[in-house]
């Protein structure tokens, strides 16, 4: 195919990061229609936007993982989401034992349920709340924080960290010369990392001498010869992966599911009345507004043609799972939240050998949190005096969710 046959994509030159962060859907809808694999100048990268192309690349032997430039600038190397081969295998072997379904089943209820109850007790008699800040995010970060061994780090501090790391990780705008367009956008991420190091370094010192059952202690020791631990510089990038995505996204997923259900009052009522529908409600919630909207990437390992586009070896492609999950070729009326839509698999957790390792834990955290919420406040209503705004291109969810109920 010659370039003259390709659609005119000059409109992409006008797209800014602020546009994408406010609402990426219009841009990606046009990409899906005109060029499912396209070079997007503001991102300085190819972007895969349809379900078919995302899935093809994510599972292709001709691609491997790569971290986005802003992601790499934020996390450093080797982060589990951006490495391959032996290092990837070692990092997955390090993190996966605690996330195996049989293992998660053993403790997830005892971990998450009391945390959800504790946060609910703080506001359930108030008759109103802002659920993102008072429930979804705190339950998400406290559950994972305790699992990691960060019991003494306040939930609000964990929330602050993921927010700063998020803005740094998704500070993706590039100049035409291939430089970061907003280098100052990484400062708050660097500050967060410095604070993280000042708090986690002493814990690592302690765990090296006195291993315990916390996840990071296991990361240091598991599979290592006696007397040796993994280097902290080796595991920090993956700690940052957790402190951003794993901390933030279950909260995003819960909040998006709730917003979706509030838009369908009859479906909300069904789910409240029958808690066994919660997993399905959450699956549709993360399809409808995928928390990890466009945060991962792949790179070609040889010259390859995808969706009619010839890519040389070493071409990075950003995976837009949030767009793929709105693909009209796969979902009817994808912008509508519908608990009862034909239940096709979605890409909210990615695909291939870099699919999210925390799927099972995240799904159960969201399930248990919503079970407790609806059990404690079955008469929950959205406070229509306040609007709901979504924000984010790399990671996406409601910025706030005001609710009321009769007490």
């Amino acid at each position: 195919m010659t370039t003259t046959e390709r659609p005119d994509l000059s409109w992409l030159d006008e797209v800014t990061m602020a546009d994408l962060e406010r609402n990426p859907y219009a841009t990606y809808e046009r990409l899906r229609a005109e060029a499912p694999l396209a070079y997007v100048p503001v991102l300085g990268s190819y972007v895969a936007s349809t379900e078919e192309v995302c899935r093809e690349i994510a599972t292709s032997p001709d691609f491997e993982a790569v971290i986005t430039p802003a992601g790499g600038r934020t996390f450093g190397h080797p982060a589990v989401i951006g490495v391959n081969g032996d290092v990837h295998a070692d990092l997955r072997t390090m993190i996966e034992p605690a996330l195996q379904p049989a293992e998660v089943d053993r403790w997830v209820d005892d971990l998450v349920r009391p945390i959800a109850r504790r946060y609910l007790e703080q506001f359930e008699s108030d008759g109103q709340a802002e659920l993102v800040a008072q429930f979804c995010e705190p339950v998400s970060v406290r559950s994972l924080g305790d699992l990691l061994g960060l019991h003494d780090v306040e939930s609000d501090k964990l929330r602050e960290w993921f927010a700063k790391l998020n803005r740094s990780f998704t500070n993706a705008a590039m100049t035409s010369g291939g430089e970061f367009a907003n280098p100052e956008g990484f400062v708050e991420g660097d500050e967060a990392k410095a604070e993280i190091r000042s708090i986690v370094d002493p814990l690592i010192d302690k765990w090296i001498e006195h291993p315990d059952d916390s996840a990071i202690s296991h990361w240091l020791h598991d599979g290592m010869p006696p007397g040796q631990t993994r280097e902290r510089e080796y595991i920090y990038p993956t700690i940052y992966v957790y402190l951003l995505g794993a901390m933030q996204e279950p909260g995003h997923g819960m909040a998006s599911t709730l917003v979706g259900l509030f838009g369908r009052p009859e479906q909300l009522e069904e789910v409240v009345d029958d808690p066994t529908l919660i997993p399905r409600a959450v699956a549709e919630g993360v399809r409808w507004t995928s928390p990890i909207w466009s945060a991962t990437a792949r790179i070609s390992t040889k010259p390859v043609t995808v969706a009619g586009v010839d890519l040389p070896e070493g071409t990075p492609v950003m995976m837009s799972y949030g767009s793929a999950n709105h693909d009209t070729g796969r979902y009817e009326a994808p912008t509508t939240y519908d608990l009862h839509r034909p239940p096709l698999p979605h890409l909210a957790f990615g695909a291939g050998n870099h699919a999210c390792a925390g799927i099972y834990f995240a799904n159960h955290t969201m399930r248990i949190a919503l079970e407790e919420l609806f059990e404690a406040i079955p008469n929950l209503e959205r406070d229509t005096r306040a609007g709901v705004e979504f924000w984010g291109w790399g990671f996406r969810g409601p910025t706030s969710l005001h609710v009321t109920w009769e007490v």
Partner: protein
Amino acid sequence: MTFAVTVGGNSVECGEDQALLDACLRAGVWMPNSCNQGTCGTCKLHVVAGEVDHGSSPVETLSDEERCAGMALACQARPRGDVELRPQGTSAARTANPLRDMVGTVREVSDIARDTRRILLGLNEPLTFDAGQYVELVVPGSGERRQYSLANTADEDKVLELHVKLVPDGVATHGWLFDGLAEGDEVDISGPLGDFHLPPESEDDGGPMVLIGGGTGLAPLIGIVRTALRRHPAREVVLYHGVRGEEELYDGDRLTELAEQHPNFRFVPVLSHEPADGYREGFPTDAFVEDVSTARGWTGWLCGPPAMVEAGVKAFKRRRMAPRNIHREKFTPADA
């Protein structure tokens, strides 16, 4: 070649080289799933009957022990024949009281309120049931079946007590139970049926209860409330009986007597359309909202016309009763 895959009451066709999950999802039968490549374990389930080929299920996700215990990953497993599946987390069906067909003999027919009869049916063999369940009667000559709740407690197992309201032109009531039914008549019965009953005694913590019955929806509540108070004589129980007018009330003495024996039990009749001195006025679900400021930790029991049951669910949730503690039995109107 396709096989039948049965899960939770649904049956779908699955090709021999098709994953169980794929077949279910395509047929609109949802089950938990996430990665669809065998690595996350979200779609793990029990193979209750039949055999599957685990395909490329990784041992990290599905251990040998789990395979031996009859677990499978729905996104990887292919059927080798007809299979029956049970999603993880759903318990094996409780041992239900066995359903029986039997013949009862009419012991007594009495008019107890306007257009309302109490019918007692004697059995040769005792019936095993839980208070609150119902039976079906076969309407003679028509083959039609009609469902009536039992007002009995489980130990009242040889004479079944039914409360029947006259349905204008109803095949069962107008044409039979209110016309010609006499002591000594034989009646074909199937039962027990339904899941409207208390949990087993070992799981009943004696927590507070509210019960709302509309008209003859009082029947199963009479069995349930007596069972609940026998288990925990001091438990807090409120029973509302909603009817149109005083003439439709019945069993007031029986319930007043029960209240005398149990100081934490209250019986509240409520009249919706024909006010009378000494009675609450309005709908019983509204009376509950007026009386009870919070129902957190309570269980709720609703039996009556669909509109009353819907209103009751809303009222209970408004008073923040946990939805899983709301039990409901709707009268589904049969064709006349």
